[in-house]
């Protein structure tokens, strides 16, 4: 199987391309179902069973269990679908940003404010 030509690497910047889309299909499909409140409730009731239902692999299931965004991206997750998972957890985009950059939420928010100066 021949993979597509790799894209130019931009440090710290995942490009969701064909390779990621192939790798992350099951994970993203599960997250897509979180558009529905019933599905969100079903996930919360039994996370492992819900992950199995959508055929997540071990890496994806572990990343879901750890709520680790960088691991979820490495497992093929797409930011837009993962945002729906973050919604279940009650995390906003500053929580997500802080987690990925290893900053406190306050420091991350300060960094955003600083960008406006």
């Amino acid at each position, binding site marked *: 199987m021949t993979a597509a030509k790799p*894209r*130019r690497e*931009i*440090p*710290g*910047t*995942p*490009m*969701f*391309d*064909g390779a990621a*889309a192939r790798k992350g*299909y099951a994970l*993203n*499909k599960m*997250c*897509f179902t*979180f*558009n*529905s*409140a019933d599905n*969100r409730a079903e996930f919360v009731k039994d996370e492992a069973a819900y992950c199995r239902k959508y055929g997540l692999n071990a890496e994806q299931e572990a990343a879901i269990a750890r709520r680790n*965004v*960088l691991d979820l*991206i490495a497992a093929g997750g*797409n*930011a*837009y*679908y*993962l*945002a*729906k998972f973050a*919604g*279940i957890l009650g995390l*906003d*985009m*500053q929580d*997500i*940003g802080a987690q*990925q*950059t290893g900053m406190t939420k306050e420091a*991350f928010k300060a*960094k*955003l*404010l600083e*960008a*406006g100066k």
Partner: protein
Amino acid sequence: MAKIVGGIVTSHVPAIGRAIAGGLQEDAYWKPFFDGFPPVQKWLDEVKPDVAVVIYNDHGLNFFLDKMPTFSVGAAPAYQNADEGWGIPTLPSFPGDLDLSWHLIEALVEKEFDITTCQEMLVDHAFTLPMKLLWPKAGDNWPVRTVPVCINTVQHPLPSAKRCFKLGQAIGEAVRSWDADARVVIIGTGGLSHQLDGERAGFINKEFDLQFMDSLVTDPAWSTQYSIEDLVEKTGTQGIELLMWIAARASLGSVEQVKMLHSNYHIPISNTAAGLMVFENID
């Protein structure tokens, strides 16, 4: 023939929906953002468009990775908003304009844009929130009919800036050749610089954003010199949504055909540099 009255380009961020629902427009954090809109609302009251063509990107409400069209055009009698997973209140449905939809579809395919047509289409925050920002008092009755045009920014390869510019030009030509006594406004939503994912999350590039906004006034094709990778590097993984601005601005015509009436730029709204520009057509 139909007339393009002008265009509006603006950012879209889910958090805006929460701010509107919570009535936070005067809150210190939100005020610099919401204060950008009254001049636009006033202009819309004056030019009174009948139809809005809304160029936006879906974030996993209507499209999933099972089928991911590069360019898609709505052809539905109405467009529903729906739960995107975050519990933001949904907005009332938007009336379509089937005549313009099908005219646009015919014209774009004629010009070799192999678009996807959608007779059912859910519209997400990228479509609904700008509409609410532009017509805050609309209630259940939006004052315009709508035609959504969606550009894929979910899965690479994305269409190039150059291609999106040409799409915009083709949309502009199509609208102007529509045999209808209608006034049309073109809306582009997305950007400006922001990045939600990866170790570079929180990336914002004020210098580039301001240069880009200036280019829409002085040299609208300026950004088409850049590749998608260049633009992701300069604006962030989601900053690439500036493709909607490029297409919307291209639809309006040359530097001589438009006058920039109003702009606003504020950092941050959530993780995003929020921009807003209004152009009036003087042709």
